[in-house]
Structures are given as C-alpha cells and as structure tokens.
C-alpha cells in the first residue's frame, strides 16, 4: 500500500514528470513528455498499476495539441493515476501502448477514429464505430456537428408550423 505522496515520490524519482498533482483523495495526475510516456506506462504496470481503465484524448485546438490521458489503477494502492501527455496536433502521431496492454489496441483505434491520431505500431486502426466516414474525425474541435447536420439532414418543419429563430 502506497499513499498518494509515496506514489508521487516514486514517480518523481523514476519518471521525470513535467508536473504532478494530487487531484483529490486517491486521484493523482501526472504530466509527462511524450518520449517518456510508454516507458512510464510499463514502469507503472510493473509497480502494481496493472489496470488500464481507458485512454482519453482531448483536442486542445487553440494550443495545437492532442492530450492523451492514460487512466491507470492499482489494485494494491487503490489509487487512480491519470498520465497525461501532449502531442502535436499536426501530424498527430504517437506510439502504441499495445505491447504493454493488448486492449489498448482498441482504445487507440477509437481515438484514431474520432481524432485522427495515428499510433505507430498499431496496425489495426480501421473503422470500428462509424461507417464510411468521409469527413473530419468527428470529435475534433474543428468539426462542427451542427453545421454538418444542417448540410446532411433536414429537420421537419411540420408543414410550416414550427417556428425557428
């Protein structure tokens, strides 16, 4: 059992974090440089952080970055770590974590589908959720869903009864 502070110490010593923060009880957030991330994942996995909850991606359009967040959990420490790293939005390429957690393949596939991030080493990035999607990856901030819907579909006007303004 480590507590949050001991965990952060461990991370500070071994992982060269850019920033660490105890968000709240049992929740820790760590920012890392992209080059350190994969190694950090395998380090933490060998230190009881075996559970990969999911991988999130956040599109910081104005900063020109994609933020990848790996949520890990330890069944020994009962602490949740959010490992964050920012990669350049263009071209948006990162390493796969598939070798460490095979299931990551599918989370990466999801991110690839919705953000267009490429994961080197993951050769299974084909369409999974969408079908024949020809446009910008929809979760990107520069994809405007309302505009898209306006172009693609028609809304019912109830024989002119509906007032739109």
């Amino acid at each position, binding site marked *: 059992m480590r507590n949050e502070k001991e965990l952060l110490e461990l991370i500070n010593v071994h992982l060269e974090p850019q920033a660490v923060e105890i968000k709240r009880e049992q929740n820790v957030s760590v920012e890392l440089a992209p080059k350190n991330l994969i190694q950090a994942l395998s380090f933490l996995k060998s230190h009881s952080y075996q559970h990969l909850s999911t991988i999130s991606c956040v599109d910081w359009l104005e900063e020109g970055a994609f933020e990848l967040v790996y949520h890990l959990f330890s069944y020994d420490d009962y602490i949740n770590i959010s490992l964050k790293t920012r990669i350049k939005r263009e071209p948006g390429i990162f390493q796969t974590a598939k070798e460490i957690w095979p299931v990551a393949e599918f989370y990466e596939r999801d991110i690839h589908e919705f953000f267009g991030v490429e994961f080197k080493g993951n050769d299974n990035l084909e369409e999974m959720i969408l079908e024949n999607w020809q446009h910008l990856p929809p979760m990107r901030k520069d994809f405007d869903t309302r505009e898209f819907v306006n172009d693609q579909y028609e809304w*019912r006007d*109830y*024989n002119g*009864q*509906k*007032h739109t*303004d």
Partner: protein
Amino acid sequence: MANDKKSIFSPVTAFKNLVKKPETVRYPAESNDAAKRYRGFHINDLEECIGCSTCQEVCVNDAISMVEMLDVPAEEGQRNERPQIDYGRCCWCGLCVDVCTTGSLEMSRDYSYIDLDPDTFIVTPDQHDINKVDHPLGYLRDENSDLLDLKRIDIEMLDPEARVDSFIEIVEGFSKEQAEKEASRCVECEICTDTCPANMNIPQYIRGIFDEELEESVQQIYEDNPLPEVCGRVCTHKCEGVCAISHRGEAVSIRWLKRYAVDNVDSADYKKILGTEKIEQNNKKIAVVGAGPAGLSAAHYLSVMGYQITVYEDKENAGGMMRYGIPEYRLPYDALDKDINYIKSLGVDFVFNTRVGEDITLDELHEQYDAVFAATGLHNGRSTRVPGTDNNNVYQAVNLLADIARGKEVPVTKNLVVIGGGNVAMDIARSMARLQMEKYGEVNITVTSLETEDIMPADQEEIEEAREEGIVFKPGRGPKEIEVNEDGSLAQLCTNCCVSVFDEEMNFNPTFDDSDIENYECDMVIEAIGQGGDNSYIDDQFEIEYAGPRIKINDFSQTSVDWLFAGGDIARGPDVINAIRTGHDAAVGIDKYLNDEL
C-alpha cells in the same frame, strides 16, 4: 460448485403460478395510472406565461420554439409569444418546468399520444396538453429542482445612522464576486430590453459581467445609453419591475450591475473600447439646447456620427436635473462627471450661462446650425396654491435642490413638511434630513402625499430608505391650507383625507373627505408636486404642436417644425432614461433628416 444445490424437482415449484392470479396489468381495461410526479405532456397557463423564452433556452433538444399568439396582448413585461413544443424533439426531461420563470409551464400525467401524421407532433400547450383533455398534474418543480436563482445578492449600503448626516453616496456597489454571482442570475430573456425606454441591451451587458468581459459590457451599454454612471445609480429601472425572475423571486439588480460594469472600467479606456478614438467629421453643425440627459444623449450620438455639436445651457455646468435635481448621496458628482467628460472628450462644445430665447434666439440657432435639438426640461416647481403658499417659508423643492447642488446655503428649520409623493419629494426630504441632522442632530420631517403608499409614484426603495432615515410619511392626505402665525412664521399644515386621486378615466381629479382633518405642525413647507417647463423660447417664434402639456414629437423626436427636434422632459418622461431615449432618437432623426431620409 460443489455446494450449488441442484434438483430437477426444485423448478417444479413454479407450477404454483398455474393457480395464482397473473400479475399482468390488463391495460387498457385495467389502467395503471402514472405516478404523481410523472413527467408527461406539457401544459401551460397562457395567462400566466410571459413569453420569456427561458424554456427555449434550457431545452436540451431545441424542442421549444416561441410562437407568436395574436390573441394574447403584448403588454409591458410580456411578449405575445408562447412556447411551442415539438414532440419530435422533446425528451421529457422537465428542465423547462424547473426553469420556468413564472411557473406557468407544467406537466400532466398524460403520456399517450399516437398519430399517423408526424406533422401533428407539435403543439402550443395551453391548459390542456396535446391530447386536449384534462389530466391530473404530474411533475411539479419544487425548491430543490428549481433552476432559477431567486434570491438577489444584497448590495452593500450604508446604515441609516451612518448615512443620514452626510451626502456620501449610500450605495457602495458590488464587489467582483457579488457582481458575477448576481449577473449569473439573469436568464437572458430580454423582456427587460422590450420594457426599457431606451431598449438597452441589458442581457448582453449582464452577460459581459458574467463572462468577466467588462469591456464588452461597456460597449453594449453605450449602444443605447451614454450616461451609464447616472443610470447605474438613479434610473427608475422599469426593467427590474418586469424582470422575469421577479415573478417567483427577486428581480436581477440590473441597475447595480450596470453601475458595476462602468464603475470598473477606466474612462480613459472608453475611447478604445467604444472605437471612438478617431471619428470622421462630416462638417455639419447641430445645436443642442439644454445640457440635461436628453441633450447629452443627443450630443453623444450625433458627435459619434461625425457632427459638430454645440450645447447651450443656461446654468453654469452640464447635467441639468441630474446635477441640480438629484442629490449627491444618490448620484455623486464624480460619477456624473465621468459620463459628461467622456461626451466632452468627443469634441462637443458647451456654451454655459447662455439662455436660448434671451441670450440667443432659436431663429439665430436655426441660421447658424443645420438642425436644433431642444431639451430644456422642467425646472419650474409647481405650487399647490392652497392658502398660505405665498408665505416666505414655503419653498419649491427644485429650487432648494439646485441650491444644495451649487453648494449654497439653504434654510433649514427644525420642523419640516414636504408635500408630494414623487422622487423629487423623496430627494428633498432626504436632503433636508441630512441638513437637519448636521444642524440639529435630529430629523423631523413629515412627507404628505395625495397618493396612498401603494400608488405613490416614488420608488419603493426610496420610501423605505427615507423611512429608515427617520422621515415620517403621511400618505393619502390632501393639503388644504397652510396656517400662518401672526408673526409670519408657519403654524401647521392642515390636510384632509384624499379619497381618490384619479377619476374613472384615470385622469388626475382628486376627491377629498373633509370630515377627516389632520394637522401637521411645521415651520417650513416644501412643495414637491411636480414641475413645469418654460417653452416660451419656442412658442414665441413658432406655432408648434403639442400633445397635452408636452411637445408633440414623432419616433425620431422631430417636432412639427422639421429642423427642430425636441426631447427630454418637455417631450416625454419625466425621467432620465426616457430623456436619453429621446436624445438618441433625435440623433438618429437628425442624421436622417440631414441626409434627406426623413
């Protein structure tokens, strides 16, 4: 696995159901009523609804749109629009009920609507829902689910004891947190915009405060009002009277928010914010008569359009009634000067101590200028003309207030009666209270008015504050006579009971009951029952049309003489915000007139 009981006979117990009554609800023969809180179809009390469109704002699915209803009147404080609900969008979340400002929108327990034609899935609910039958009420909002913030943030004010002996401004203004919290209460329905005489973009500037973008707020305010420091303090705030939140709670403090926005932006930045650093001049000249709110407003908007403005004022400083009528504790001169100085900085020329009609005639102005805007206001106090008013100790409120503003010595006696129930009466009573406090250490002022308290024209909060400061109110009394002692000093004011102020046609026609007489001892009486203007400088030269006591103007403040525009109290009002509006209208009108569009 070993301890899992298993037996092929255990399941046979299920056969007992063969002889039991099935649990099926045999709908529709047996109906299963929806629960008390069920979120069914919408119903809406069309009388209560004000068409504020907050439900439209909160709707998750864009299912609510406002539809114009011709059989509902568009009165002050409500729009003739009512929510129309698209059941091809609705998700029955009930947020619209939680947020409804009046509480008119509710849900019934009705849940079944089926039709072949999708075009029938849109309805403007009234007391019946889409099925047009009565159903018991379903989901109701309660204080927990309420999404509106009904309690306003109390503004910091000086205590009555602390304020009554000085002319320091009594309202301290919002802090940043308070202002943002108060601004967050606004639902941006724009009912206030419709009601505001100047149609200010109220929700927009409140939004600016909420978003911590005060510059945006100032921009929005200056769209329609060049005197925000003034209006942020002394506006009659009709907007707050109709505020949608006020139906179930306390109105948003629109006035104080406006004040917060302008107080917290440096006037040095105004030109940058408002984009008036460089104005292209068009070499046309306009004369403005009177430097009151209407004149200043017109001067501001015209000069922004590039006109050369000269303002003629018979007093020694600009501001009109704002300076000479409103006491300093309500409107500090610094605040007034901030507004006026900005207008001056736009290149407006002021000619003080010059009375049009005496020092220069209107005809002369017409010759020198392309157009003239007259806004000379009402500066002559009216008298009740009851016996005794010709005594030396009977004063006119406007004169006293002007003297106080000029810093002149004014007579202060121990025992004062003010006649009048308007804001001017409050202003003079409270000013005199401060002077009495300075001089005698106690307040002894009685205010009598024809109107009973519920119809007194003064703002409710003014009355409250006056009362806190020790002023005694005697509403519903008509002055009958001022009894004068033999030595010329005053003895008492004799009043009778005022039964009604207005007749059936709502004309001013008071009736009195002489059997109910009350006398108030006094040694000084101040009359504050209204003012009149002096339009002789116009009347001497032109045949101008009047509408009642006021000069008749059109939507662009143009009088029946095409180059002469009029505004302010002589045309509408009387209050600051109407004056500002007429000034703004005149600016637009003059621009159109000079471009041959009018």
